[in-house]
C-alpha cells in the first residue's frame, strides 16, 4: 500500500460531502464577477467619470482595496474591474481555501473521523492529498469561470485567462498556507486562527508595498495577494509573475509534507503537556469559566487587531506624501491634510469595529456550541441559573469586544502618531474607536437576541454582518444608493474623526443594545435548552 492509496475515493468523498458548500461558493464568486462587470460599465459610462474614478482609486483607501494601480491613467473597463474586484475576490478565495483545507485535514483528525478512515485501506497521505486536489479543482473552476464571464464581455481572451488563472493560483496558495498551519496545532480552531493571521499579514504586506510606490514596492512582491495584479491584465499583460505562485506552492507543499511526516495522526508539532491537578482560585463561576474558555481567542484577536491598526496608522505619512505630490486628491477628499488623514483613519476605525463585531458575534455564539456539545447541560445541572450563565457570556463578549475595539483605536493612534510625530492622534483615535464602538456591540446584542429567542436564525446575524461590512467597505466605490448604504450597521452612527460625534443617536443605539440584551436573557430563561 502506498501513501496515496485511496486518494481517488477520498476525492470523490470530499466532492460528495461538500457538493452544496462548494457550489454555493462557486456561484457566489462567479456571479459577483458576472454582475459587477456590467455594473461598472454602466456606472462609469464615459471617459470623464472613469478618470474621476481612477483618481479616487489613487487615494489611500483606494489603494488598500484596489492594488498597485496599473492602468489608472487610462481607466477602461479591464483595469477597472481588476482594480476594484481583485481584493474582495482574493479575500473570499482565501476564506474558502483555508476553511476547505482545515475541514478536510485537521478538523477530521481532531474529531476522530480520520482515525476511522485510516483504519481502512487508506494511505497516510491520501486524505491531505485529496484535500489539496479538491482545493486545486475548486479554485481552478472558479478562476476559469470568472475568466469566461469576463471574456463574455468581449474582453481580451489572454488577459482574462491570465487573470482567472492568477486568482485560482492565489486561492490554492492560501490553502497551502493552511496545510502548513494544520501541521502545527492539534486543533482546527487554532489552525484557522493561525492561517488567517498569516494571510492577514500577507495582505498587509501588499498594502504597505502598494502604498509605498505605484506598481508595488518590495513588500508587495513578497505577497501572493500581489502577483495576480502584477501580471497587469488588460494593461500590459505579462505571465512571469504567475511563476512566483508555482515556486510558492512547491515550497509550502514541501514544508507541509515534511512536517506531516514528523508527527503522528491526531497530534501536532506542539505537544500537549499535562495541566494543573485542580482549578485555580479564579475558575469558580460561569463568568470566569467563559473568560477562561475565550482567553486565547481574545488575546489572538487583540494582537491581530493591534498589528493591523498600528500598520494602517503608520500609513498616515503616506497620505501626507500623496497629498503633497498630488494636490488633486486633496480636492477629491475635500479639506486639508489633517482632514484627509482623519478621513482615512475614520474608515480604518470602521474596519476595527467590523473586526470587533465579528469577534463579538463569535463570542456570544459560544452559547450555541456549549449547548450543542452538552457542556451547557453539565453546568446548568449545577446550582447555576440560566440568566447567570447566559449573562456571563454577554459580559465576557461585551468586555472583550470593547477591549479589542479600543486596542484597535490605540493601535491606529500610536501608528499615526509615530508616523507624523503628533501624539494628539493617540487620544483622538481612542476617542474615535469608542464613538464607533456601538456598531460592534450591536452584533453582540443581536446574536444574543437570536440565541435567546430563535437560535435557528443565527445565519441572519452573519448575513447582516457580511452585508454591513461589504457595503461599508465597497459601497461608496461601487456607487451603492443611499438607502442600501443606510442598511449597514456601520453606517448608523457618525464616524469620527471624519464626522462630528453626536450624543443623541449614540445613547439611543446603546439603549437598543441593552434592551436587546435584556430580552435575550428572558428568552434564554424560558426556552428549552438545546441538548446533544
Amino acid at each position, binding site marked *: 500500500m502506498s501513501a496515496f492509496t485511496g486518494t481517488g475515493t477520498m476525492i470523490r468523498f470530499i466532492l460528495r460531502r461538500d457538493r452544496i458548500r462548494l457550489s454555493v461558493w462557486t456561484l457566489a464568486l462567479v456571479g459577483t464577477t458576472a454582475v459587477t462587470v456590467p455594473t461598472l460599465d454602466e456606472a462609469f459610462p464615459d471617459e470623464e467619470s472613469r478618470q474621476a474614478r481612477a483618481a479616487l482609486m489613487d487615494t489611500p483607501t483606494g489603494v488598500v482595496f484596489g492594488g498597485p494601480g496599473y492602468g489608472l491613467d487610462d481607466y477602461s473597463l479591464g483595469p477597472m474591474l481588476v482594480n476594484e474586484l481583485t481584493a474582495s475576490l482574493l479575500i473570499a478565495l482565501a476564506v474558502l481555501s483555508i476553511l476547505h483545507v482545515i475541514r478536510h485535514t485537521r478538523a477530521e483528525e481532531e474529531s476522530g473521523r480520520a482515525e476511522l478512515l485510516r483504519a481502512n485501506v487508506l494511505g497516510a497521505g491520501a486524505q491531505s492529498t485529496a484535500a489539496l486536489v479538491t482545493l486545486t479543482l475548486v479554485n481552478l473552476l472558479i478562476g476559469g469561470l470568472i475568466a469566461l464571464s469576463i471574456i463574455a464581455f468581449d474582453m481580451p481572451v489572454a488577459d482574462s485567462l491570465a487573470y482567472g488563472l492568477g486568482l485560482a493560483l492565489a486561492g490554492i496558495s492560501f490553502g497551502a498556507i493552511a496545510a502548513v498551519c494544520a501541521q502545527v496545532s492539534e486543533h482546527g480552531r487554532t489552525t484557522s486562527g493561525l492561517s488567517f493571521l498569516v494571510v492577514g499579514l500577507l495582505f498587509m504586506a501588499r498594502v504597505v508595498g502598494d502604498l509605498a510606490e505605484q506598481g508595488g514596492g518590495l513588500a508587495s512582491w513578497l505577497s501572493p495577494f500581489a502577483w495576480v495584479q502584477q501580471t497587469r491584465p488588460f494593461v500590459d499583460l505579462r505571465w512571469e509573475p504567475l511563476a512566483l505562485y508555482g515556486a510558492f506552492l512547491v515550497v509550502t507543499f514541501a514544508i507541509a509534507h515534511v512536517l506531516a511526516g514528523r508527527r503522528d495522526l491526531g497530534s501536532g508539532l506542539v505537544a500537549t503537556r499535562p495541566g494543573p491537578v485542580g482549578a485555580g482560585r479564579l475558575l469558580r463561576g460561569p463568568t470566569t469559566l467563559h473568560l*477562561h474558555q475565550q482567553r486565547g481567542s481574545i488575546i489572538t484577536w487583540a494582537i491581530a487587531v493591534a498589528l493591523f491598526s498600528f500598520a494602517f496608522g503608520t500609513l498616515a505619512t503616506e497620505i501626507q506624501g500623496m497629498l503633497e505630490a498630488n494636490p488633486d486628491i486633496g480636492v477629491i477628499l475635500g479639506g486639508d491634510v489633517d482632514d484627509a488623514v482623519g478621513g482615512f483613519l475614520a474608515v480604518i476605525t470602521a474596519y476595527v469595529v467590523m473586526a470587533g463585531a465579528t469577534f463579538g458575534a463569535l463570542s456570544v455564539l459560544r452559547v450555541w456550541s456549549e449547548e450543542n456539545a452538552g457542556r451547557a447541560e453539565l453546568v446548568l445541572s449545577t446550582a447555576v441559573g440560566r440568566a447567570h450563565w447566559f449573562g456571563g457570556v454577554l459580559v465576557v463578549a461585551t468586555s472583550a469586544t470593547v477591549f479589542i475595539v479600543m486596542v484597535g483605536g490605540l493601535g491606529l493612534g500610536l501608528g499615526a502618531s509615530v508616523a507624523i510625530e503628533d501624539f494628539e492622534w493617540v487620544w483622538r483615535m481612542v476617542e474615535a474607536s469608542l464613538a464607533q464602538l456601538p456598531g460592534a456591540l450591536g452584533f453582540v446584542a443581536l446574536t444574543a437576541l437570536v440565541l435567546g429567542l430563535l437560535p435557528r436564525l443565527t445565519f441572519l446575524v452573519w448575513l447582516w454582518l457580511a452585508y454591513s461590512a461589504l457595503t461599508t467597505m465597497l459601497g461608496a466605490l461601487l456607487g451603492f444608493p443611499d438607502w442600501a448604504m443606510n442598511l449597514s450597521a456601520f453606517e448608523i452612527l457618525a464616524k469620527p474623526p471624519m464626522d462630528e460625534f453626536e450624543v443623541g443617536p449614540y445613547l439611543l443605539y446603546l439603549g437598543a443594545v441593552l434592551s436587546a440584551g435584556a430580552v435575550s436573557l428572558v428568552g434564554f430563561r424560558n426556552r428549552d435548552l438545546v441538548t446533544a
Partner: protein
Amino acid sequence: MSVPAIEARGLDKYFGRFQALDELDLTVDSGQVAGFLGPNGSGKSTTIRILLGLLRADSGSVRLLGGDPWKEAVALHRRLAYVPGDVSLWPNLTGGQAIDLLGRLRGGLDDRRKKTFLERFELDPTKKARTYSKGNRQKVALVAALSSTAELLILDEPTSGLDPLMEAVFTECVREVKEEGRTVLLSSHILSEVEKLCDTVTIIRGGRTVESGTLAELRHLTRSTVRAEVEGDPSALEGLTGVHDLSIDGRAVVFAVENDHMGSVLSELATLGARSLVSNPPSLEELFMRHYGDDLAARGAAGEIDGRERA
C-alpha cells in the same frame, strides 16, 4: 421522609411533531436506589432533562425534592448531582480542573472525598479533557458527582464507557451512597447492574411507563425457568395451566412457569418422580425482553434498526 425525591405524573414532551414522552410516570422514594430502564430513544434522557429543569414538559406534573424543577432549578440543583450519559468536557481544562469547577458551581466540594474517588477510579487529573477517552470523561463526571454530598444523584447510563473493573468500583460506590441514606436515580441498559443495585425499577418504552415496582413485585408478575429430570412421561406436563415453552429431551424438560402456578406444577413434577430440579427466578433480562421482545423480533424480521434516535 414522606415526600418522594422524584414524582412525575403524566409527562408529555414533543420535539416538533415527534412525541418523546407519552404520559410518563416516575416515582422515586427518598433513600432508594431506583433503576430507570429502557432502550435508546425511549425517553430516559428526556425525562432526566425535565427533572433537571433543562427542558420543560408540555404537560404533566413534576416535583423534585419537593420543588418545581423548572422554577426552582438553582435551589434544587444545590441538593443534587448529575452525570450525563455522554459527558463532554472543556477540551482545554484538565480533569482535575473540571472536577473542581463542577464542585464549586454546585456550591462546594469535599477535597478529601475527591482525592479518594480519584484514586478509586484510577483517574489522572492532570490530563487535558481532550485527551480523555469516553470512559475517562465519564469518570470525571462521576468523581465530581460522588465527591459532592448531594442528597440526590441522577446518573444517566453512567457505566456505558467503563471497563468491568471500574464498573465494580462504581457498584461499590453506589452501595455506599445508599448506605449514607441518599437517593439515586440510575438509568441504564445494563440489567445486571440494576439488579445488583436497585430497590425499585421503572421500565419505559416509547416514552411511556410500562412497568414499575420493586424487583420482587415485578418478578411476581413473571415466569421462572424450570429444568428437571423425571422418571415418568414428561408429556404429562403439556397443557398444564401456567406452563409455557415446554421442551422435552428424553427425560429432561425445560419450561417456563408463571409464578402463580408454581405450586400445582411442582406437585405434578412430584407425581412424575422428579430426580433433579432447578428453578431460576426471572432475570431482569427476561423482564426486559418481555417488554421489548416483540420489538426485537420485529427488527430481526425486517432486518433494520429502529430509526428513532432521540434519547
